[in-house]
């Protein structure tokens, strides 16, 4: 049996972290190049800010916080979809935790719940089965969000719903893909990113292979990293070593969980139920071709987006003009460059994508701050 302290023990050892910081400084001193690392995943942004890792790095290593926060990248009109679905008669909307507090143009799901809608946050998508079985006279809509990490769980729910013939479960699919988001960032000629830390959990499913094209096309190192501070520091060291040696390779620091091929059974399950959408609009980044999934035609009878097409809002809603999230996600600006950061825009009243979830860059800067720069 896994003990709860197995999750973190050893990966936060102060001596190891200090030693890694020394090694990074030694390596970084060997190059005059500015190393601009994008950590694609919001989980890494959280680690970097929560553990104050930026303060341990030399001046020529910078972080650019990427678009890998599934809640942050949801455009407002799709959050409005969730609220609209929840407002239908005899409907239960089920979704994963963080989604509940993100405001759309009509309010957050938490507000809709307070106004009487039946909205249930869950931790395990398979819990939806019991909710549907307990409420046979209601339509239960699973509002599915997340990157490659969470898609297999949605697929497993759909597989179970089909196998058990639980017909009152529908799906609203918002599963997005990491590689097209990386391409969207790099295709901007102003992009300063010249190295990547690859997501941890996404790579467990998809394998490190999905970043090979990034390495080949943009000649940047990609190091797949675990989420603990020791993981991230070691990945920074590996990137710095590649930079000093003039290399651009795919490397896997998180080898205790990630293989090159990934979890093939999970990939097959996803492939059975999902296909790539032509385009998906990302909050802050705009429409990105082939960057998200949708249900295959065989499962259109489960697709809430089609079944409720007539009532779901279609107008695209952009963020506040002053919001710089698009530039922050592309690495062209830092949260503190934004005029509304911490003034009009805070975690309670977010104006843009990066402030909405604890994994967004602005939210992490707001919450944890960069203390040494301020005092």
């Amino acid at each position: 049996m896994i003990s709860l302290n197995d999750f973190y023990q050893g990966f936060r050892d102060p001596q190891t972290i200090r030693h890694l910081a020394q090694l990074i400084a030694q390596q970084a001193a060997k190059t005059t190049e500015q190393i601009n690392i994008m950590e694609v995943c919001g989980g890494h942004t959280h680690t970097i800010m929560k553990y104050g890792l930026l303060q341990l790095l030399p001046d020529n290593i910078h972080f650019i916080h990427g678009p890998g926060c599934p809640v942050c990248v949801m455009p407002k009109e799709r959050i409005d979809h969730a609220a609209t679905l929840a407002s239908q008669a005899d409907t239960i909307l089920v979704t994963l935790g963080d989604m509940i507090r993100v405001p759309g143009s009509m309010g957050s799901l938490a507000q809709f719940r307070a106004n009487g809608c039946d909205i249930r946050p869950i931790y395990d998508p398979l819990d939806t089965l019991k909710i549907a079985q307990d409420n046979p006279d209601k339509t239960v809509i699973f509002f599915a969000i997340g990157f490659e990490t969470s898609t297999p769980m949605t697929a497993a729910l759909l597989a179970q719903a089909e196998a058990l013939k639980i017909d009152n479960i529908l799906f609203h699919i918002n599963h997005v893909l990491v590689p097209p988001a990386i391409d969207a960032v790099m295709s901007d000629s102003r992009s300063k990113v010249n190295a990547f830390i690859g997501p941890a959990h996404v790579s467990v499913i998809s394998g490190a292979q999905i970043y090979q094209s990034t390495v080949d096309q943009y000649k940047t190192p990609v190091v797949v990293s675990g989420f603990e501070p020791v993981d991230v520091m070691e990945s920074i060291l590996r990137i710095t070593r590649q930079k000093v040696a003039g290399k651009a390779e795919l490397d896997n620091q998180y080898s205790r969980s990630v293989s090159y091929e990934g979890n093939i059974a999970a990939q097959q399950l996803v492939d059975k139920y999902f296909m790539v959408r032509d385009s998906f609009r990302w909050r802050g980044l705009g429409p990105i071709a082939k960057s998200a999934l949708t249900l295959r035609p065989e499962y259109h009878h489960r697709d809430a987006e089609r079944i409720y097409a007539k009532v779901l809002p279609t107008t695209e809603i952009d963020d506040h003009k002053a919001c710089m999230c698009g530039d922050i996600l592309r690495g062209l600006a830092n949260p503190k460059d934004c005029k509304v950061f911490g003034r009009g825009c805070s975690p309670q009243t977010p104006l843009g994508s990066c402030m909405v979830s604890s994994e967004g860059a602005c939210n992490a800067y707001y919450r944890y701050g960069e203390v040494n720069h301020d005092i």
Partner: protein
Amino acid sequence: MLITAMEKLIMTSKKTIQLSHGGGGKEMDQLIHDLFFKAFDNPILTSQEDAAKLNMCGHIAFTTDSFTVSPLFFAGGDIGKLAIAGTVNDLAMMAAQPEYLSCSFIIEEGFPLDDLTTIVNSMAAELHKSGARIVCGDTKVVPKGCADGLFINTSGVGRILHPDISVRNLQVGDAIIVSRDIGCHGAAILMARDGLTLESELRSDCDTLWPIIEQLLVANIDIHAMRDATRGGLSAVLNEWAKASNIGIDVEEASIPICDEVKGLCELFGFEPFDLANEGTFIMALPMDLAEGAIEVMQRYGHCEHAAIIGHVTERHPGKVVLQTPWGSSRYLDLPQGELLPRIC
């Protein structure tokens, strides 16, 4: 008609609270006498006046709290224990000796009488720890669906023994002490809730703090501020202090006692142990040179084996709490925000 012992048992075990128990008539009178008076027995309560007559002098602390915990029974306690410990602890944190409490029940129709009895007995047991007495009360029964089982409100008064304790009284150089490992109540409740199915030995820290506080006051320790770290946890207390006293607080992360189960739960669900609620854990500020002595008293008389100095008050960054990591970096320890919900990936 002959009723077998088994049938009798089934009948009694299925007894539930009816709307009539709150109607002011015979059923209510029976409930009050058979259950509440029996458990909370004292002459002020059983005199049954419209209001309790109290004999008090000097500065009095007065507090109130409502309890709505779900589930009602959890590892380490229940809503009854919580309702007594919570109000008694609020008085204790003002260095006031908990003396008289009021107690109001809002009960949902159909609530099992056995459960109510267990809860009331657990309240009585908790009262013994501080010597406080319930001297007045109220019972309302609401129709099914209008409350979640049982809500309890308790208010309390007590004579202040040390008048200078205040959130505005923190001074530069003060030590910050935490009385035990943090986050156990919040973690135990989260584990007990539907959807978070985990097996663990973890128990809520829910407990009456007065016996420890009494020992600190007897030892004549010059306490500047005290607060039990309930909702919002350690983060909320330290941030409130920093703002109210307009000072900064530096905390050493490695010094904060946190048990393995709480750490593991936080890892699994993306919570911060500093944000989790406690119900029998307090934070104290006092001059640094008195800190070791205070910890000795707490350990010797109060079962506070894990009490620790976790930080100090500074004139830098007024209004802010800064957490120093064991590897030399630092960050703000901000107030928790929003609902405590699991992170998704």
